């Protein structure tokens, strides 16, 4: 049976990363980097589900990730539940917050959805550091310290041994990303694309626009919240530091490099952007300049990202329709005139 190209690409990425530790397990900094790749891959692909597939102009993904981290950390600290359960709780809570933000967004046009969702990002840091935050246990400016690591059976994960963390990250991120794959290829995924491509047409065919928009807010946030929880237990510390613009821009770049709306582009983009970001650290102050240049080159030469280069699809951009028409005129076939 022929396998879909997108599933094949995903399996290649995870297949290669599954055997990498054999060669690099001693290099803790590379191991750590790859674990972060798995984590960002989930966030980036969840964001792409909203932005690339459903066409919802959300800028709140980083905020949702942070909410997930805090929620999971706080759940283990205050409720004493296991990190595994806490991650699930974090996913559900993040989904709830996302739906609450999604409700007012339903009637808003793209730019205003961006503003509203970004507002979540903006208010999150002051909120978490405020008295209200401290009252509910966010640890104020300090954040959460000593967040419990994962444990399976008798074994407790430790920051000294990264191989178990690596495979836990791989397994969890694969599960979440595979779930996204299933959603994209389900009727939900069809509804998301329908709303994105031709909303009125979709509505006239029975697609409940509000239901599916809220659904994508919820589902995308759930996956992000769960992996945010994983991040909390992996790093052991949760703070508002990642609410700066760096991570936000990096996640955007991941989607652009990989190819928006082209699963698993965001996953591939996550690995490339994270590794590139790290490699460019040697360039010191020129890191951002070079990074920016790379982004510009990608956007101009590969508008559909890496997935567009690997698996080109008949393009839907007006530019290409124009060039097709011009080609037809020059070929001058009687039947075309």
């Amino acid at each position, binding site marked *: 049976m022929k396998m879909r190209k997108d599933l094949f690409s995903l399996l290649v990425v995870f297949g290669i990363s599954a055997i990498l530790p054999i060669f690099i397990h001693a290099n803790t900094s590379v191991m750590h980097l790859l674990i972060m790749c798995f984590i960002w891959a989930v966030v980036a692909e969840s964001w792409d589900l909203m932005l690339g597939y459903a066409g919802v102009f959300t800028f709140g993904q980083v905020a949702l990730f942070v909410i997930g981290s805090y929620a999971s950390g706080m759940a283990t600290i205050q409720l004493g539940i296991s990190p595994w359960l806490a991650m699930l709780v974090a996913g559900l809570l993040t989904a709830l917050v996302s739906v609450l933000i999604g409700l007012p967004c339903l009637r808003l046009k793209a730019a205003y959805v961006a503003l509203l969702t970004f507002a979540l990002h903006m208010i999150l840091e002051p909120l978490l550091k405020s008295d209200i935050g401290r009252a509910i246990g966010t640890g104020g400016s300090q954040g959460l310290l000593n967040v419990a690591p994962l444990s399976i059976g008798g074994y407790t994960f430790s920051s000294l041994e990264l191989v178990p963390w690596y495979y836990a990250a791989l397994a969890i991120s694969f599960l979440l990303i595979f779930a996204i794959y299933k959603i994209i290829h389900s009727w939900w995924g069809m509804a998301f694309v329908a709303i994105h491509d031709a909303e009125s047409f979709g509505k*006239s065919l029975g697609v409940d626009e509000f239901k599916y928009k809220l659904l994508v807010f919820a589902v995308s946030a759930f996956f992000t919240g769960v992996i945010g929880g994983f991040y909390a237990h992996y790093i052991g510390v949760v703070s508002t530091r990642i609410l700066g613009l760096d991570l936000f821009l990096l996640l955007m770049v991941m989607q652009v490099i990989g190819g928006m709306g082209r699963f698993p582009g965001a996953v591939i983009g996550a690995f490339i952007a994270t590794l590139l970001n790290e490699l460019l650290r040697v360039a010191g102050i020129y890191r951002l300049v070079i990074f920016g240049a790379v982004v510009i080159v990608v956007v101009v030469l590969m508008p559909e990202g890496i997935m567009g280069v690997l698996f080109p699809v008949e393009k839907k951009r007006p530019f290409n329709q124009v060039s097709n028409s011009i080609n037809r005129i020059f070929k001058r076939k009687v039947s075309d005139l």
Partner: protein
Amino acid sequence: MKILQVRKLNKSFGGLTVIKDLDFEVDKEDIFGIAGPNGAGKTTLFNLITGFHRGQGDIIFENKNIDGLKPHQICHRGIARTFQVPQLFMSLTTFENVTVGAHFGVENGCDEKKNAREALKIVGLEGKEDAAATSLNIFDKKMTMLAAALATKPKLLLLDEPVGGLSPTEAKQSIAIFKKINKQLGVTIVIIEHLMKVLAELCSQLMIIHNGEKICIGSPQEVSEHKRVIEVYLGGRLNA
């Protein structure tokens, strides 16, 4: 039986009255035409019936009031429509476009693939099922849009200027397909068109709208001889 009854329909956008005191009825399994100069409010009428806009007055479908319902709910009640400017899901293939209608347009589970194939057969698009929507010419785009609407198994089909921009051959094919839909599937059709020839061939009843008001309603023959209609379209009789 009257499948659609519109009573005292009014719609304004700000200070502009687009539809004024509109009253008409459509018989079940009929083909009902609507014509009128551009800007007369025809598409707005369709938007009101299908829930895209809200107006004042009553819109009654199968003896039940449907104002206030959202477009997807109206689809589930059994009203489908096409758009003046062809709308399609450009990321999908022809077949996938139609399955959206087949799946989301029918409330309880159904065999989407079968319904989609049937709809494509009626509009004559078998063989083009796997074509990307972006590769279709305008006629095929219109037919795909129509097939998707049919896949929702409607009882009433609203066609908004379906023949515009088509060659005479394509227009003729379209007319034949509309007749098939009406006779074989028993679907009531309300069609907005500019070409009198098309309306005369298809419709048993025809309504002319001008500036949001009904000018005349009757058989195509009666309507084309109506004094006010001639005034509106041609600016008055030669020997007036």
